[in-house]
């Protein structure tokens, strides 16, 4: 064993520990990469159709996004403001309403009494501290989101040179392979994002139509939230259902809430078991449990950001595993000449 290999091994260990310590930063970086790929897909399409330079295409795309966002805000804001006013009048009456609901069920009443007994000032005091922490966390995540957006724009502006940087950091004998790997990761991520965008669009339209037919207030906003949260499978749609259900319960009544829940349940299952597999089967070949397992494991390892980014991460990890671990290591691992295996 020469000193050189020892130093290399030590450097590797130190790098690994450093990466573990900085895992949240790396996760932010990965989020930026995902967003950059999301920006890059329409840019590529645009450049194929029109003879544009990359910055011009990016500017056009960002402008289109801004216009779309402005349109949506203009559509949504009056209704949201109105509903918020209604809600702010309603919220003081909320405990009374819940009380009226719970008095129908005798078992709930005892629970409520106990809960009310527990809600004295001493118990609420830590809540203030929690609220402050929450505000700090919100500011922190806003900064992180801004950072992600900025990084994504920078990455989308000039992906080639960033790719070259990554290529220069690999050993000479592996550079050709690395190029292929990067391209495949990009393809897989792009395919996943495209499929999910389509499915989110379908969910958005269907939710909007269904909620509007049920005459639930804030239908457009609820549908938008549902569509955005479609990108986080299994957990996202369930969380997204809470908003229209709460709105229906507070503004209309429990019967409407049940209808909304049934509509969302049907839509969610149709999306998860019919639409997404069909849309993704061409580009990303993920086994269904892999997504679930990845969410569980990454959520346990990295917390909420890991949970949110679990699916894109697992798409990339699957490509890397398939190509590096299976194709380059395991497939070539024949019987060693020293070991006398069967």
């Amino acid at each position, binding site marked *: 064993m020469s000193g050189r290999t020892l130093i290399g091994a030590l450097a*590797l260990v130190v790098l690994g520990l450093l990466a573990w310590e900085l895992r949240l930063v790396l996760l932010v970086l990965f989020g930026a990469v995902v967003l950059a790929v999301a920006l890059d897909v329409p840019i590529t399409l645009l450049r194929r159709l029109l003879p544009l330079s990359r910055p011009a295409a990016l500017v056009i795309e960002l402008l289109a996004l801004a216009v779309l966002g402005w349109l949506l805000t203009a559509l949504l804001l009056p209704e949201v403001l109105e509903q918020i006013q209604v809600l702010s009048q309603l919220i003081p009456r909320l405990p009374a309403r819940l009380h009226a609901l719970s008095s129908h069920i005798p078992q709930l009443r005892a629970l409520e009494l106990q809960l009310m007994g527990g809600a004295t000032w001493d118990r609420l005091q830590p809540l203030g501290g929690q609220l402050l922490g929450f505000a700090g966390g919100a500011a922190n995540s806003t900064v992180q989101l801004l950072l992600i957006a900025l990084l994504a724009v920078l990455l989308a502006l000039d992906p080639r040179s960033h790719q070259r940087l990554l290529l220069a950091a690999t050993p000479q004998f592996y550079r050709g392979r690395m190029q292929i790997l990067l391209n495949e990761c990009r393809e897989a991520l792009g395919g996943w994002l495209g499929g999910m965008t389509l499915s989110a669009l379908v969910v958005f339209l269907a939710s909007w139509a269904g909620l509007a037919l049920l005459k639930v207030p804030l239908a457009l906003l609820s549908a938008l939230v549902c569509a955005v949260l479609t990108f986080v499978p299994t957990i996202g749609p369930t969380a997204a259902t809470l908003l229209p259900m709460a709105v229906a319960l507070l503004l209309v009544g429990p019967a409407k809430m049940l209808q909304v829940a049934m509509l969302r349940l049907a839509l969610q299952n149709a999306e998860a078991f019919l639409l997404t597999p069909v849309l993704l089967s061409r580009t990303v070949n993920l086994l*269904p*449990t892999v997504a679930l397992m990845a969410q569980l494991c990454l959520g346990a390892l990295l917390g909420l950001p890991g949970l949110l980014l679990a699916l894109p991460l697992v798409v990339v990890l699957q490509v890397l595993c398939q190509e590096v671990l299976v194709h380059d290591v395991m497939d070539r691992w024949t019987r060693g000449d020293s070991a006398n295996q069967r």
Partner: protein
Amino acid sequence: MSFGQWLSLIALVAALVLAWSLREAIMLLFAAVVLAMAVCTLVGAVQRRLGCARPLALLLSLFAIALVLAVGAAAIVPPFLAQFSELLQKLPEAWTELISLLHQGLESFSRMLYGRSDGGLRWLQNLSGTVRAGPALASGVGNWTFRLVGLVGNVGTVLLKTLFVVAVALMVAAQPIPYREALLQLVPSFYRRRARQVLLQCGEGLSAWMGGVLISSLCVGTLAAIGLSLLGVRLVAANAVLAGVLNIIPNVGPTLSTLFPMSVALLDTPWKALAVLALYVVVQNLESYLITPSVMHHQLRLLPGLTLSAQFFFTLVFGPLGLVLALPLAVCLQVILREVVIHDILDRWKAVPGRAIQPRLSGGGER
């Protein structure tokens, strides 16, 4: 050592650390695989019996499982719940009964010893009095609100985990072959054929174990029900179901399942509690020396000491879920140890002519 070897060593250590920190998720995955294996066994049996395609067989067996669960729930759950709540209400009574019995016994003992009622054993009675005050104090002092919130959170977590396990099990059971092939891709190419054999053997071992446990649990439940109804102990259905379900966990489960009927019987007459204890001991011995040996495949029979140490070990490493899954884990580990470690590594180790290891560990033959 070359750099490549260093790289693989570091990767191995990192993978092991990662697996250790994710051991709960891995345990959940294993539970799902065991459940999926059960469904697959049923599907295979249906397929062979009816000669239909796999999707149809899967649908049929899922339907059958749902039907059995629904009928069982409809038939057993309402009386079970009623009996169980009665049981829970009666537990404190049984406790006071036990304490007063103890008092009487001590009194008669001291009378025998000293000839008077207030003998020298008074301090022991006082001691048992403080013991009686203990649990009442603990239950009274506890902050109910916080305990309730914690309980709700725990129930939610458990429910979520159960849902996860069931969902993964159904997905794996729907198409088991792609998962097996994906797993085999992660094995070095020279070992893939052998790894497939080992995996298949693990699956066979698991399904054989599950069949055996199902039969022995049914037997234990039936025997307990017959014995309890002969003894005239109330709450027969609840106790029989409890005995059958807890029979899945060896050693610990049967002991736990004895507590409830004994406390119920104690309320009626004290001698009945002893009779129940004797009944359960007899049933347990019947189960472990007559039913299980005749039902279980002989290669699956684990030595009692091995079972107990496996339970201890897996509980220590994986928590309560490890205790429940200790036996399936032990079955799989036994196959892997026998096939991979002993057969492929130790048997081929030329420098050591230790051939005598194999017959000792390969099965439970010398039981």
